[in-house]
């Protein structure tokens, strides 16, 4: 059955299997039920362990690492409270299809089901949020489960897998080091062949007069950026991306119309209304983008995706190509013709000119949009940017133009406040030579603020850009626009002194409040490769525009200039 050698403990085997899988870094937090594994990890020369301050931080770090490097992210927790602290992060990874392996300790097999100390049924709890999970009952099964889990996490539409290891399984001896037979079918991890007719698919595109490419997070997962660029240029088709797809197509490219959806650009959302053909490349017609069945009402709709369950799930489409995005585009490219799309491109240019991203920069206060544009200029657009959730997230998406994939880290599906700081830490571990900036808000920052210690401990050069409006800004925006300015529980009547707080962790920090200080602030923030926090005081009234009100669709977009009309 299996290749056998000298018997080793389950814990030892877990470490060796991680090493063999090429895992170089793991993020975790020890505890009783996972101690045998940690004891073996102590001896590993290949795996670096990052001790976090809260298990939620461990998952987000693994996510930031995975998203920015394209590799598997690994996080570790003990049983019970350690494992349940992972849940928010795990759900986040599930919704954004990030390849994560979560390893949890469990009480010993004979104690399972007895409400033992620190027992939680993490297998049961994570059934709805994992792509695959397993409770490993004996050390002999360990190798097989590891191989299956890693293959499933990375294969097809990537995702989250969780393996739960009872303490005695970690101490049991086994000589089964390698799985000879897997129990899951190959289609769960092998790259699927492209199904559909690429030629016919291309011909519909060729016939379009006003085509639009709509690129999602799947493009990042499939490393398909080069192919998308080739396709757009060959077809002479404008490209819009979702929040998750930012960077999959260069934001500075003449064919780019930026982001679409709830806070996308007006020109992208208008292009959706006007196009006669929309080609969805690895997006999922998310409800923040495609509210109703009449999405792109004048267009033939086509969809390429690796996950067959996404076809016609929310929005019906006319043409389908099933497979890995990179492969699929390679197959249709030879059949794609240029065609004269001059008038469509001109149309797009005039949309861009007449409906630009806009904000009022007249007063003395600092506008986050302005500040972000300056950070963009100063970093030459080369930073890796993570965000938390709220207005700052949308401003960052709008005003920092992403030219490369894997440089934009945001919680798209779950919208998890607390994601930004640990994600930036994970990304910095994976990309020590790059500038990594966490853009956050005063609300979100306080959700995983304890990870400042992780930065300090590893002397990590993570930059924190904190926009402080003393509000849960996005909540306030909705309350202002849709709840007649009843600011129920969205204002902070207490915020800590963020500068002192950062300094307490040995992180240089500075606060700016007036426009005259912007230059100084940006310089301070980016002057060297070390960590820094800049707290930028911004007006609480500042809003994110454009905006498609919740429950409405592209037709109902409100632009900055329409605000007056809308409020009346």
């Amino acid at each position: 059955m299996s290749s056998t050698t000298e018997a080793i403990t389950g814990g030892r085997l877990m470490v060796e299997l991680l090493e063999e899988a090429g895992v170089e870094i793991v993020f975790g937090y020890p505890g009783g039920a996972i101690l045998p594994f940690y004891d073996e990890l102590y001896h590993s020369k290949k795996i670096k362990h990052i001790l976090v301050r809260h298990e939620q931080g461990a998952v987000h770090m693994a996510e930031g690492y995975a998203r920015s490097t394209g590799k598997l992210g690994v996080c570790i927790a003990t049983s019970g409270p350690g494992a349940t602290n992972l849940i928010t992060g795990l759900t986040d990874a599930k919704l954004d299809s990030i390849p994560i392996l979560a390893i949890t300790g469990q009480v010993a097999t004979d104690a399972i089901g007895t409400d033992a100390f620190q027992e939680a049924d993490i297998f049961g709890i994570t059934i709805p949020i994992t792509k695959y999970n397993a409770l490993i009952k004996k050390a002999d099964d360990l190798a097989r489960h590891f191989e299956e889990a890693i293959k499933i996490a990375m294969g097809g539409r990537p995702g989250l897998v969780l393996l739960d290891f009872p303490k005695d399984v970690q101490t049991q001896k086994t000589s089964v080091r390698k799985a000879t037979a897997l129990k899951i079918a190959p289609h769960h991890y092998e790259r699927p062949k492209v199904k559909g007719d690429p030629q016919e698919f291309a011909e519909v595109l060729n016939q379009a007069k006003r085509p639009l490419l709509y690129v999602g997070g799947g493009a990042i997962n499939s490393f398909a950026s080069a192919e998308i660029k080739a396709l757009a240029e060959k077809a002479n088709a404008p490209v819009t991306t979702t929040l998750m797809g930012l960077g999959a197509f260069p934001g500075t490219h003449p064919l780019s119309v930026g982001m679409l959806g709830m806070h996308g650009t007006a020109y992208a959302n208008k292009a959706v209304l006007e196009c006669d053909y929309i080609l969805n490349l690895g997006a999922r017609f998310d409800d923040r983008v495609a509210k109703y069945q009449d999405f792109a009402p004048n267009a033939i709709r086509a969809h390429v995706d690796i996950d067959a369950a996404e076809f016609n799930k929310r929005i019906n489409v006319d043409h389908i190509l099933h497979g890995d995005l990179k492969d699929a585009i390679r197959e249709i490219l030879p059949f794609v013709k240029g065609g004269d799309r001059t008038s469509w491109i001109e149309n797009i240019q005039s949309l861009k000119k007449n409906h630009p991203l806009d904000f009022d920069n007249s007063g003395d206060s600092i506008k986050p949009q302005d500040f972000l544009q300056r950070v963009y200029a100063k970093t030459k657009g080369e930073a890796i940017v993570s965000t938390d959730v709220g207005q700052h997230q949308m401003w960052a998406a709008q005003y920092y133009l992403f030219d490369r994939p894997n440089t934009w880290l945001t919680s798209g599906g779950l919208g998890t406040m607390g994601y930004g700081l640990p994600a930036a830490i994970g990304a910095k571990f994976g990309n020590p030579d790059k500038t990594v900036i966490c853009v956050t808000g005063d609300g979100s920052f306080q959700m995983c603020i304890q990870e400042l210690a992780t930065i300090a401990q590893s002397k990590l050069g993570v930059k924190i850009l904190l926009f402080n409006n003393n509000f849960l800004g996005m909540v306030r925006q909705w309350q202002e626009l849709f709840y007649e300015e009843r600011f129920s529980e969205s204002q902070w009547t207490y915020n800590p002194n963020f500068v002192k707080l950062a300094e307490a962790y040995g992180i240089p920090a500075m606060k700016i409040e007036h426009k005259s200080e912007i230059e100084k602030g940006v310089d301070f923030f980016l002057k060297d490769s070390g960590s820094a926090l800049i707290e930028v005081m911004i007006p609480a009234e500042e809003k994110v525009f454009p905006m498609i009100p919740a429950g409405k669709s592209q037709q109902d977009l409100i632009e900055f200039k329409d605000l007056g009309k809308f409020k009346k």
Partner: protein
Amino acid sequence: MKHTLSILVNNHPGVMSHVSGLFTRRGYNIDSIAVGVTDNTEVSSMTIVLNGDDFVVGQVKNQLLKLPDVLRVQDMAYASSVQRELVLISFSITENNRSEALTICNGFDVKILEMTEDSLLIEFSGNSRQVTNIISVLKPFGIREISRTGQIAIAYRNQNSV
């Protein structure tokens, strides 16, 4: 429309939760579910009856196929198949209606498992409609207890069979 899905899954703990959880989570309602191991002890067969249009059932099928433990999903709505349920019914009888009850049982091809002075315990198998039927016919006698298995199904090898 009612659809019957015949699903092959790996036979190990947690698989049932994975499958039934998927239905709950995505808001699909299960009418009945029946599970048993196949000739291969590593594989179980599940029959799930659900109400939904082709779109919903297509979604269910796609989502099921994403579970690593699901090996095959077959929608019986598009195959000619035999569908059966087993029901055990205990109901009251009196001296006066005993022969009437027995006549009904004969007509329905029912197996009598126990007869006492004032009760009958019977076994019946048929498709869902027939099972519902016999329950309603016996109801006037006074039903004491019912145990119903949920539907199982299998496609005919020869798709011209009815």
